[in-house]
């Protein structure tokens, strides 16, 4: 299993552009928003956490649709499916590797974005923390979509459509926790804990659904 993790990590570093593409996309999104809202620094700071979260969400989608497709195309997916090891675990490990290669860099880069958006320290910290906790959920949901996409010849966009609605709750709680950290009356912990719960929930549901889909559509 560790072998699988390392292989996937190596592959996305080497072939997919890995970390950089996500971060660049993230940067692009963040760079464009100020044009919309104008140079109003306060407003920027206000919508900052939301924008960073949306950017991260969208960046996580790039490449997610190929999570299993690449393995299918060269036949390794078949071999992964045959093993005694529970398929759910295999999927889980692949998700982890994907998260490490693409979302983790985003989490690490998010303070930079925060600075661009004129956010203060607490707010930056909160966004980073919520991203760290919340972004795996998106990967796990995405895995379910990607597994479905394998069955489709060119399922990329379809996956995002299926994934985005499900990721809305994650986004809501992520953003509201980030806001709660700054704005006084709202408490930080409840939405944050809810976010953690969501991630745990999807960490179970996502791989399960993905495994189900993979088993049912191989041919």
């Amino acid at each position, binding site marked *: *299993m*560790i*072998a*699988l993790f*390392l*292989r996937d990590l*190596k*592959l996305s570093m*080497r*072939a997919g552009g890995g970390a950089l593409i996500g971060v660049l996309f993230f940067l692009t999104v963040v760079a464009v928003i100020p044009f919309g809202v104008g140079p109003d620094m306060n407003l920027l700071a206000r919508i900052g956490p939301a924008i960073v979260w949306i950017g991260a969400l969208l960046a996580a989608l790039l490449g997610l649709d190929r999570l299993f497709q690449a393995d299918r*195309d*060269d*036949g*390794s997916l*078949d*071999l*992964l*499916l*045959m*093993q*005694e090891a529970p398929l759910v675990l295999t999927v889980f490990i692949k998700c982890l590797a994907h998260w490490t290669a693409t979302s983790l860099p985003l989490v690490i880069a998010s303070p930079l974005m925060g600075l661009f958006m004129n956010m203060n320290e607490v707010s930056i910290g909160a966004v980073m923390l919520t991203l760290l906790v919340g972004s795996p959920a998106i990967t796990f949901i995405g895995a379910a979509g990607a597994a479905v996409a394998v069955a489709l010849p060119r399922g990329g966009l379809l996956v995002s459509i299926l994934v985005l609605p499900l990721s809305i709750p994650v986004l809501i709680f992520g953003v509201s926790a980030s806001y709660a950290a700054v704005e006084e009356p709202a408490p930080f912990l409840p939405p944050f804990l809810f976010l953690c719960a969501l991630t745990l929930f999807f960490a179970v549901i996502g791989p399960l659904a993905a495994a189900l889909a993979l088993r*049912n559509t*191989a*041919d």
Partner: protein
Amino acid sequence: MQLKAENLSAKRGEDLLFRKLNFCVNSGEALVLTGRNGSGKSTLLRVVAGFIRPESGKVTFQSQGTESRPAREACHYLGHRNGMKAELSVSENLHFWKDFLGGFEGGTGLSIEEAADVIGLSSITHLPYGYLSAGQQRRFAMARLLVAYRPVWILDEPTAALDAKADAMFSAMVRNHLRSGGMALAATHQPLGLDNAQQLEMRGFEFDDLEEMV
């Protein structure tokens, strides 16, 4: 050790491709599938490997003293696609499969170097897999069968793209595997040069119980 298929039927699309097939392969035996193009050889192999769920029946693997288990867990599958990453080097690929596939009771896998030696390409394991010629790629896919032990080898037209020498090498490899107690299921259009092999001829779609299906 025994691989047993009982009452096996499978569909392709919406139609039955074969129906109520029974066979049983014992330790040291091979089963060779023949039949014209499109007759269902690959489909049968993929059913055994567990990719396609059969319409009826099941395939089980049993070794002495243990419970029977799904056949796929005891199998190596060598299909049309090699299951190797073009971006990684040959040895990275083989190392990954060795680690990931792990062991299986009743045998041990060779090391990467030994396996590369057997297939006669030990000098180029450092190259990226994508740089190899078709036959070389195929031969390294065969090396995968050696680095992790599995009693059953499922081979779908294994010798396509091989030159005469490699062909002989592969026959020897399969014979060796059988001699040491393994089993093999192979679909080929060219003789594999095995002695104690059962033959099963596939015939293509069965029409008579179409109405059950819809």
